[in-house]
């Protein structure tokens, strides 16, 4: 069993821990938001073609090397030493484009009673988002 983390999701998937994150195509979308299509590795209207180098670096049978695609896309990933927990991050160019678009990124976080709230619950209101910490 492997845990795949993104900024906003945590998914458990049946897969082998290792130095690369190989996922069955069936689990791909649930864990990463991306899918494998004939055009390549796709999300929304973006598709990254599978490099046609004849190797099985990126895909073999019904398995996709997600960490290799992440590298190819210039996105950061990190894994535990045993390769059983993976974090799939966002790249700086995408994040900067989002920041400069001025569209406030949505988030979902718990309150102190464990109930979850999203920024998007407050559409049509002005929101002062304010951080603090105990430390």
């Amino acid at each position, binding site marked *: 069993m492997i*845990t795949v*983390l993104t*900024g*906003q999701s*945590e998914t458990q998937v049946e897969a082998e821990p290792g130095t690369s994150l190989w996922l069955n195509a069936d689990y791909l979308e649930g864990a990463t938001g991306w899918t494998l299509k004939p055009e390549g590795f796709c999300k929304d209207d973006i598709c990254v073609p599978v490099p046609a180098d004849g190797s099985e670096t990126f895909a073999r049978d019904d398995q996709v090397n997600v960490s290799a695609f992440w590298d190819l896309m*210039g*996105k*950061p*990933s*990190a*894994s*535990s*030493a045993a390769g059983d*927990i*993976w*974090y*799939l*991050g*966002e*790249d*700086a160019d995408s*994040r*900067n484009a989002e*920041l*400069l678009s*001025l*569209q*406030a*990124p949505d*988030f979902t*976080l*718990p*309150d*102190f009673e464990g109930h979850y*709230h999203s*920024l*998007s619950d*407050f*559409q*049509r*209101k*002005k*929101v*002062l*988002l*304010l*951080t*603090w*910490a*105990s*430390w």
Partner: protein
Amino acid sequence: MYEQLQGEDFEIISVAMDADVEAARPWVNEAAPTYLTLVDRDHVLSSLYNMVNVPQAVWIDEEGRVVRPVESGGSIDILREFDPEAGGFKPEAMERAQAAKTTYMEAVADWAKNGAESPFAFSAEDAAAHVSQTSDDKMLAHAKFQLGCHLARLSRDEEAQALFAECRALHPDSWNIFRETTERMEGGIAAGPEFWAKVMALGDKQYYASVDMEGMPD
């Protein structure tokens, strides 16, 4: 004061950037705020909004658009005006800090009332110009930090600490990463010798970047 501003068209979302929810809870219980108070164990907002310190604030309008990007709210950089002999900040620094708080809160009140008409809400062009951009190293730091927080919750502390050390090196400007992952003093405050050494090494850099707002002291 903030609480009085809440109404049909203005909301405050306060977020504790605390890996340990229980460390933050007493503060919430003490303040008993009427506004929404959330906890961000993995500092997701640091990555999403490119935040580096607390407090930081963002103004978001009715359309979900940022009209003031991340800034230090009403906090200004007086850290190096601590007077060890007196055991407190110099009176002049305290006055400036108080003036900054008041100025900022009045600006928030003006925006809560007047929205886009408020002189404190930036135009889209000005808001974009105030966006602080991230970098590949910072984004890798956020990835490793969030993985480290997850591992720490599984009591895999050694792995977590190794990742946190990498994060601090990758994103040295992040006080959120630094203070969350380094030594705590009595009372849980991350202001030990390591913290002060880093503050003193800032040189010309600020601990809290100046807020670009009329009437706001540096």
